[in-house]
């Protein structure tokens, strides 16, 4: 595309709807829960992230959007240091959880506090019950059979799965449908009461009803934890999130309140992407 039509699109946005005009550009009233600064990430020689900095505010939902392969998963996988398990991967920059560098936090402690739901459902080859109880047992969060059972039931209810599985808790998790498996993974993550929950396209395998349930769940979880959700679904990002970050080719192009991003993006790439004009 040549320069001329590009500038036409940009100037087509009326001046009075610029970000500051709409949301006042005020800082959030909540403290910063998680702060990523200057993240460069490499898979071997390939640089997947370039100087990404984002502040995640406590009890807020932040959506990360962007075309496939732009580094959304790579980014959030740094927030719980799960990328460290990839051979030859290297992360530069600083990530603070409650002001503390996550590299200084014991990694098992960090991951208990920063839970993650992966892009593809990955239940363990165990029973439904044992899947949910896993984190509880590993972290010693409940003692005794009764207490663990309560935790499991509670987590399954929160993930909107209880009614579908309460009569087959001791059946294999593989007997569940893809969508149910994903909700099981959400329940599993919730069972350890994380402070931050990273959700990598949690609804990509779900039907609209289950998606609605998950979105309701995100709202009810808001006062208990800070959430980061990667999604390809623009409506979903607009519905559930308070903040939105737009990634493109490993760079954070734009970050702002969700209303601003969707109504009056400052960058042309953002606008092209959210309006579906992107390549």
């Amino acid at each position: 595309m040549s320069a001329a039509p590009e500038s036409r699109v940009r100037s087509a946005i009326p001046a009075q709807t610029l970000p500051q005009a709409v949301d006042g550009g005020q800082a959030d009233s909540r403290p910063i829960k998680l702060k990523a600064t200057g993240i460069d990430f490499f898979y071997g020689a390939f640089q997947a992230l370039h100087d990404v900095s984002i502040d995640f505010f406590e009890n807020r939902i932040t959506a990360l959007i962007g075309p496939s392969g732009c580094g959304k998963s790579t980014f959030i996988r740094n927030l719980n240091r799960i990328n460290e398990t990839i051979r030859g991967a290297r992360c530069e920059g600083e990530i603070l959880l409650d002001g503390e560098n996550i590299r200084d936090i014991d990694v098992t402690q960090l991951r208990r506090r920063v839970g993650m739901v992966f892009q593809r459902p990955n239940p363990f080859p165990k029973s439904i019950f044992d899947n949910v109880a896993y984190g509880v047992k590993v972290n010693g969060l409940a003692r005794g059979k009764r207490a663990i059972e309560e935790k499991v039931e509670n987590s399954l209810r929160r993930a909107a799965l209880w009614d579908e599985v309460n009569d087959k808790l001791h059946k294999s998790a593989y007997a569940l449908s893809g969508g149910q498996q994903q909700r099981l993974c959400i329940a599993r993550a919730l069972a350890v009461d994380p402070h931050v929950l990273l959700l990598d396209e949690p609804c990509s395998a779900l039907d609209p009803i289950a998606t609605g349930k998950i979105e309701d769940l995100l709202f009810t979880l808001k006062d208990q934890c800070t959430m980061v959700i990667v999604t390809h679904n623009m409506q979903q990002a607009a519905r559930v999130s308070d903040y939105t970050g737009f990634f493109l080719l490993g760079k954070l192009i734009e970050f702002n309140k969700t209303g601003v991003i969707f109504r009056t993006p400052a960058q042309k790439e953002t606008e092209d992407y959210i309006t579906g004009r992107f390549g």
Partner: protein
Amino acid sequence: MSVRLIRRKIVNAVMLALTGLCTLITASTLLVILGYLVFNGASSIDWNFFTRLPLSPGETGGGMANAIVGSFQILFLAAALGIPLGVAAGIYLAEFSPNSVFSFFVRYTADLLNGVPSIVVGIVAWSVVVVPMKRFSALSGGLALAMMLIPITVRTTEQFLKDVPVSMREGALALGASRWRAVATVVVPAASAGILTGVILGVARIAGETAPLLFTALNNQFWAKGWREPIASLPVMIYTHAISPYEDWHRQAWAAGLVLLALVLFANIAARFILSRGTHAQRG
């Protein structure tokens, strides 16, 4: 049709027929061995075979009770030594240090050991156990077979662990499990059906080994009184009976062959059963 095309069709048909023929020969060789064994063995097998000790040459009607039990004893010893060691080493190779020089070396050694002729394993066991102890023993036989079982176990364990998807490990780690915990509670259980299958097949393979036992466990016409005594085993019994000049001993050798075959066959079927059940659960 062009000449080229016709030629390709002919070549295709000939190759197909050739490979089919080879398959037929392979299958029939197997069937002949099985048939021969069943034919000769079944007519020789009787209740005495399982309950009585061998008799001296010339007498008829003895059995191989001591060799059957002895084989199990030696295999038990080999399994008790070889399986824990092999599985642990396999876990180390697959999970904790897959790319180090040390692991490369271990893997290479295991593969070499796998290819070492079993008679050589026997000599080694003889020189490190039998010679210093100044006696043939069940212990040395078990050790020799363990030496053969370890490399098989190491490699199958490693392979099945590697087949466990990365997402499984990540799932466990992301919940706050330590690496060791994730391996012990998620990865190894996920591979357990495969590992168990590999181990059973490994034991079945060494069950028929004769050479490593010839100058370690030796043989015994009676019940072995302990691990430090020479002990009878089915493969060695087959060997000594088959090369003897006595008709009745030949009969017994066939019977022993059949029993050994039945045991190995049973182990194979069990292994397959376990593996298919394990993978069914995963496919869901």
